[in-house]
């Protein structure tokens, strides 16, 4: 057994910070008086009232996504240095903490996934709701058929001025917000329309059926993605909006900000 213990000692030696992913209350208390390392809690909500807390907006199923989000969030909020050695304790296979992994915060090239949620114009809850709609749509499709969709979130005034209607706006004079279950059904129904959804900072659905016409100059997105992704990248470069795209061809959900691809999720995993 001592070899196993040594192995664990090697993993946790000289760590600068300990990240607990969704810890239970009693598990958190075991580390409450940790002196030689920072303690950071990464969870959907701060159930243990930790001082250093990073909120997970979506349930990342893969550990890498979670760790990446947690580290970017902790660095951004100044809980840990960018060079820190971080030990992460997470639950991967079950409900309890079963995985310990050690990473160097600088090993990650910053993807900006934390930035996408927290430092965008739109409220984080709105972005999360839109992402959930996109994931739900990607999972089931529209009446069983795969669909594509493009949601432009935030900076709606500017987006409206850089786009034109393709037809009558079904959300004209309506005051509906994303996150409402009925509205999510409406969004799914309207996803068969061509064009983009425009959603304001506070989550109001401003318009559907929008044809985006930003200048696409200098937008660099991976080759092989279609016009929808190009439009998404371009509108986020031209305005302060972010864009969430569901691809019709490969079924992935992608997030764009500042003209760059930030986030890529497979709806089937959620």
């Amino acid at each position, binding site marked *: 057994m001592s070899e196993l213990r040594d192995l664990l000692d090697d993993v946790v030696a000289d760590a600068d910070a300990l990240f607990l992913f969704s810890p239970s209350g009693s598990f958190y208390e075991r580390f409450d008086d940790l002196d030689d390392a920072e303690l950071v809690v990464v969870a959907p909500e701060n159930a243990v009232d930790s001082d250093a807390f990073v909120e997970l907006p979506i349930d990342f199923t893969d550990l890498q996504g979670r760790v990446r989000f947690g580290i970017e969030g902790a660095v951004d909020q100044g809980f840990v240095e960018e060079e820190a050695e971080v030990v992460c304790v997470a639950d991967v296979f079950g409900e309890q903490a079963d995985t310990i992994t050690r990473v160097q915060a600088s090993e990650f090239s910053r993807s900006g996934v934390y930035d996408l949620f927290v430092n965008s114009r739109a409220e984080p809850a709105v972005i999360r709701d839109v992402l959930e709609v996109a994931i739900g749509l990607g999972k089931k499709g529209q009446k069983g058929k795969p669909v594509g969709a493009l949601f432009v979130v935030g900076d709606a*005034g*500017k987006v409206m001025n850089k786009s034109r209607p393709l037809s009558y706006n079904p959300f004209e004079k309506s005051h509906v917000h994303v996150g409402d279950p009925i509205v999510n059904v409406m969004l799914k129904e309207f996803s068969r329309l061509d064009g983009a959804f425009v959603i*304001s*900072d506070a989550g109001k659905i*401003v318009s559907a059926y929008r044809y985006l016409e930003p200048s696409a100059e200098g937008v660099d997105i991976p080759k092989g993605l279609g016009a929808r992704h190009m439009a998404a990248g371009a509108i986020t470069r031209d305005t302060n909006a972010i864009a969430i795209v569901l691809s019709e061809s490969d079924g992935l959900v992608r997030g764009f900000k500042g003209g760059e691809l930030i986030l890529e999720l497979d709806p089937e995993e959620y």
Partner: protein
Amino acid sequence: MQFDWPEIIRTIFSEQGAFVISLLILVTGAVLGYAVWRATRRLLYEAGVDEAVEGTPFERTTRSLGTSTIGLVSNLAALFVYVGSVLLALNVSQLFNTAIFWSRLTSFLPNLFVAIFALIVGLIAGDKAKLVVSERLRSVKVPEVGLLPELVKYSIFYLAALVALGQLNVAIEALLILLAAYTFGLVFFSGLAFWKLLAAAGAGFYLVLTQPYGIGDEVEIDDRRGIVQEVGVFVTHIENDGEEYIVPNQRVFQSGIVRVRE
């Protein structure tokens, strides 16, 4: 109209008949009390009262006494019927000839019942209201806000106590004056504090309903020109080259809107 029931029964039946009838009233009262107990329980459970009162201090107190709120209320209802029938039976059989005392007691009993019931409802409603309000305010991280749920709770307690005392014919005029002063203060000061918000909300409803301008339009309100980013009930967000103006909605009515169409 006030009937003298014991006398009427005595004229129809004999003295012994009156005694038998009083026994019958006792038995009927027992059966009726049990039926009332069952019906109240069933009704309260079906109305979901057991879930609604779950976790309130009153429910916890009753639990520690080995009963529950529903048990207490239904027992109270049954007790009311039992006591009523016993009193009626005693009255009919006239074992004690103190008719005035009994008739007073019988007219007082419903009031006592209502008073107890009002107290129970008030205690539960107050705790529930406190829970709901503090749940609503949970995201507000200001220590002073903790005062508000307590205020709501004790206001409801006070009202319930007033109703209960009023039922028992206690002189509550002074307490009523206090309540009036409290209500007046609440209405007056909140009106004073919130009338600007009310004006903004009034204008906001007009804006939301008629939509004279929408998100993406270029407008000018009070020399602030820019693109509308958000129209809320209280404020309108107008953005212009990195400057975001948050304009209270009543400004729209005070100075009008300029819609810029080029």
